[in-house]
């Protein structure tokens, strides 16, 4: 007879993942989860959307350090974070429309990760018409601080909700793309896409 402890260790117990995702759904329904997230497919790679009852909190590229983002959210917003497809439907349909060439008004946002200065800068980028770009200096002026081009660049680089808050519409004074948290290829793809659908 085989060792009894080993037999217990090897007992088949079935899959726990169904129960784990049911838990996440119930946690959102009853309000004990404060932040929910899931992956969302897009033409610029898988994105991870983090939402709260107030709206979209953050959008991460697949090249971002998701663990670090989750830790920031846990510390600054709430550690009650669960993974659930059901919570990110609004973001998913907004992104689908946008990439299908039917951009919609900005969805509900949770600005907990956005500083007041950053909020002004990002509002200025949201005012740039689709298919157009502005320079860092121009956006700094629009945000009410013409001398703060560098700070503006930093605020844009730390945009927690890229694509939806279009920091990609800001380029260097010489017209070069300059930089993007998601990489210059993604910035180029987004600007090409917006030029194509704006005509």
């Amino acid at each position, binding site marked *: 007879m085989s060792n009894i402890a080993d037999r217990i260790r090897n007992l*088949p117990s079935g899959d726990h993942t169904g129960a784990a995702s049911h838990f996440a759904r119930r946690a959102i329904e009853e309000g004990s989860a404060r932040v929910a997230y899931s992956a969302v497919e897009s033409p610029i790679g898988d994105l991870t959307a983090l939402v709260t009852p107030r709206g979209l909190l953050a959008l991460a590229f697949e090249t971002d350090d998701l663990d670090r983002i989750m830790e920031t959210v846990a510390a600054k917003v709430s*550690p009650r974070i669960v993974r659930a497809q059901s919570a990110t439907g609004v973001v998913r349909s907004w992104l689908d429309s946008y990439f299908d060439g039917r951009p919609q008004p900005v969805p509900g946002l949770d600005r907990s990760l956005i500083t007041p200065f950053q909020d002004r800068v990002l509002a200025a980028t949201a005012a740039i018409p689709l298919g157009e770009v502005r320079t860092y200096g121009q956006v700094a002026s629009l945000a009410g601080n013409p001398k703060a081009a560098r700070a503006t660049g930093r605020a844009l680089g730390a945009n927690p909700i890229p694509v939806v808050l279009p920091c990609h519409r800001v380029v260097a004074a010489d017209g070069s793309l300059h930089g993007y948290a998601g990489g210059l290829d993604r910035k180029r793809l987004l600007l090409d896409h917006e030029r194509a659908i704006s005509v």
Partner: protein
Amino acid sequence: MNLPPFQRLVDQHARALHRFLCGMVGPDAADDCLQDTLLAALRSYEGLRHDGNLRGWLFTIARRKGIDHVRKHAREIPSSSPPDQPAQPEAVRDTDLWDRVARLPTKQRTAVTLRYLGDLPYADIASIMSISEPAARQNVRAGLASLRKELA
């Protein structure tokens, strides 16, 4: 100490918690007990003061859920397969062993399942069960001895 995102705890420990609950309440009820365990943990998560042993904290909650469930369903004998289900090879299901684990006295069942299904060290088992470490070892030994005798 900063609390990690709750989902990370789920990803790290849900499988072991589920196996532990299978031993405590049987495979059929383990899904519900796991959901209840995770919900209870999440509800009290924010502001939780912990010493770094979040796994032990989760198992403490799971143990309570498991014992509550067994008390509520005291007259039913947990079974992982309904009687009309065609018999499967022992090696695949080993339902007999599940049932026998489930019929152990509560303390022995808890200690044995924490050790071999939850894969926890004796220090954690002792703290989860609020008993001494030697007592935890003794409960595991007694549980195993009783199973060995029944299955011999």
